[in-house]
């Protein structure tokens, strides 16, 4: 099952790697990633689509623990 997550991520060294790495290691296969400048200067707006049978809310909580992730919400 695919899940979409919307993230606001600080533009810091390794920030996107941490997001992708966390998703993969926790059992959520990234199938699409869109990233660009966010509304706030110095932030990425990220739309991440992952495939997993696991609860997307759990991934959202794990991503929220990353220091560079300012906001995360599960869209679907």
């Amino acid at each position, binding site marked *: 099952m695919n899940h979409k997550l919307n993230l606001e991520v600080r533009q810091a*060294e*390794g920030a996107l*790697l941490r997001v992708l*790495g966390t998703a993969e290691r926790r059992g959520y296969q990234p199938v699409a990633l869109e990233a660009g400048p966010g509304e706030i200067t110095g932030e990425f707006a990220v739309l991440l689509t992952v495939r997993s049978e696991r609860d997307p*809310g759990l991934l959202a*909580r794990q991503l*929220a*623990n990353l220091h560079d992730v300012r906001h995360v919400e599960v869209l679907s």
Partner: protein
Amino acid sequence: MNGAEFLLRALQHEGVETIFGYPGGAILPVYDALYTSSLRHILVRHEQAAAMAADGYARATGKVGVCMVTSGPGATNLLTGIANAFMDSVPLVAITGQVATPLLGTDAFQEVDIFGMSLPVVKHSFLVRSANELPQVVREAFRIAASGRPGPVLIDLPKDVALAPADFSPLDRAQINSSPAPSPAALAHAKSLLRASRKPVIYAGGGIRLAGAVEAFRAFAELTAIPVVATLKGLGALPADHELFLGMMGMHGTKCANDAVQNCDLLLCIGARFDDRATGPIKTFAPDAKIIHLDVDPAEMGKRRTPDAPVIGDLRAALWGLALPLKIDAWRRSCLAEKKTGAVRYDAPGESVDAPRFLNRLAAAATGETFVACDVGQHQMRVAQHYPFARPEHQLTSGGLGAMGYGLPAAIGAQVGRPDARVILVTGDGSILMNIHELATIARYKLPVKIVLLDNQFLGMVRQWQELFYQEKYSETDLYDNPDFVKLAEAFGIPAFAIETAAQEDEAIGRLLQEPGPVFLQVRLDPEAKVWPIVPPGKSNSQMLEDPAFTGAPS
């Protein structure tokens, strides 16, 4: 002042007194600055030990541990220690030298992408590309390491940044973020489950100590009078001799602890994470229980078992908010009766040293504040089972990562941090050889660590699994050609002796504890002795195998 000098000044500003490390090319500017610094540096003999000693220091003192090494192999050698701190939520700041910024990405000598390699095992990390970043980076590193659920933070410092001008003042000291209290609604829901329960059990984890909630936990347990089981890292949250304590749960837990969990109608998981070694197959774990899960980390909720009542936030506030007297006398009596029936026996027959009895006697003799570090394997489980801990911080064990080689450097870190306390290392003959060089550190700094080597000339835990579950095919676990450990310890300048009979146990313990300075005791054990009880892999915690010597069951 250059970046290196500023770094050391900023570390001192954060309250750092001791660094565990090993010098090398890329970190040379910092070691140059260290030459005239008042910071204490403990020179280990392998970078892995620097991280593990800083870990032991952090666990024993409650402060952030700091380690420092060079780039390339120095940094990669640090990784196991960083992973260990990550898995066990230990606050650590690891500083690695790096090649100069113009050389980054060119495969320069001793260049490795430690920032990238360590991403999955750090709470956060920084690659400092300009000296201007240093004040903020150092403060953030300490704040992140110690706030909320603690963990390791890496600072990768290129050599040119360390040499660049840095005439800054350290920023205000890092403020550790206090964890928010749980929501009143979450507490009210959890309380309603608690009131309705007739057979509750507390499942206590290492998070209780990390949250500084030991006293609140003890008050909660005593007010509610709920029977308590503990994970490996939760041992000591309630003193081992407390009436309500049923013992460790899980693969090598007590039968009464596992039975209580399996039969309870409500499980209060407090600062624990449903680790597979504790639960066995999650579908068979506490099958009839509702779950209240108390933790500071929202990402633990539902990771392995979805709680009926998640309570996220500061454990102390959660425990005070949930405390209420319960009418569960019949259940408690039944748990305590099983505890009494299954009490561990220390009357093993035979003339050989019995490791459980030895450890129990060691604990009885080691009065005063005593930290016990251990490695990983049979001896680790025996310490957990037979060394009664009065406080959780007294046990230094690699719980999550299960890293052989942890014990000796962790004992060093604990003894450096707590010179007033006694530190005992209990290790195995497989584990000790993974960081044996650290005996040189013990000798160099005259650290009075008491080392007990439980030597069965095998990788005992793997051998035990091979005997019980792999048709006695002892593949690569026979350590028949171990070195002469007594001579080896003496070569490092550490007094050493060996015993092999039960009759020698008490005298050896007396000598070990009374002799000043470090002592190395080799205890020769029967290689066939196994750790009981054990839950076979893939079985539920209801299906424990017990010691056939005491049960009459077939071995």
